[in-house]
């Protein structure tokens, strides 16, 4: 079930969802309100990472791919004049917002990150796989951005570039195998 803007704000107030910084203003009477009816905007942080091209292939079955990616990427900051994402170029970015989805019995939320239709019409993808923000997640969201259009797209720090859709989780997720490891009765209490 997708949460409405009012339910998203209620979840924030109750600590079932943490978005830092807190999206403001909440009222749609303000033009800079980050809430849509069923989503809240996320904004582009200043750092970008541009993977280099080269005579190599990524092989995820081999160890060390994270290190390899980091060593073969250029790191840059978006200047005040903006960063032009050229056609067919792939870059990584981050949201300014840190998202936390605590696992709370009967009240857990998960989320999905989606692009904005305005940027999509210019050819921008802000993620093209793995849109789900799983229950228990805590961190900023990595944006996998690619310009599929035929002209450059100027990106600015702080632009509302993506949106977060919140959903309620049915049932309580098991976070790890130790969570119920010592439970021997249906109620979860140790057997005497």
């Amino acid at each position: 079930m997708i949460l409405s803007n009012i339910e998203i704000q209620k979840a924030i107030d109750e600590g079932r969802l943490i978005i830092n910084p807190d999206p403001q203003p909440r009222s749609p009477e303000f033009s800079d309100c980050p809430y849509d009816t069923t989503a809240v905007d996320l904004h582009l942080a200043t750092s970008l990472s541009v993977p280099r091209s080269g005579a190599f292939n990524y092989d995820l079955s081999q160890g060390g791919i994270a290190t390899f990616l980091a060593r073969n990427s250029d790191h840059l900051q978006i200047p005040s004049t903006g960063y032009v994402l050229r056609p067919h170029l792939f870059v990584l970015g981050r949201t300014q917002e840190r998202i936390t989805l605590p696992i709370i019995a009967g009240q857990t939320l998960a989320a999905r990150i989606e692009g904005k239709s305005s940027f999509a019409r210019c050819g921008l993808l802000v993620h093209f796989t793995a849109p789900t923000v799983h229950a228990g997640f805590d961190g900023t969201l990595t944006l996998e951005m690619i310009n599929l259009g035929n002209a450059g797209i100027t990106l600015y720090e702080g632009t509302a570039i993506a949106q977060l859709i919140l959903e309620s989780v049915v049932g309580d997720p098991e976070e790890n195998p130790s969570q119920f490891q010592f439970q021997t009765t249906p109620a979860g209490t140790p057997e005497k």
Partner: protein
Amino acid sequence: MSAWVKCSIEQGMLPGEYAVEMETVDVGNISLFAPEDKVRVEQKLMSVQRLHDGNGKGVLVRLPAQPFEISSQNVRVPLRNLVNE
């Protein structure tokens, strides 16, 4: 229970993260991008949740992020590579 696992640590692709490589018992070396608050760069340690001891087959731990090489955040690591809090 929290613990620290020995690993190699380098700068990540983005600020606030580090590229980490570590040894496992059953799937060889794996790598991931760990949040900066989960690593001790100087000591080459990464924070993990210790889940259970695995009957001599390595200690099952939960990693702070998804590794590239496998689809689970839970892996078995050699006991000798763990440092308790």
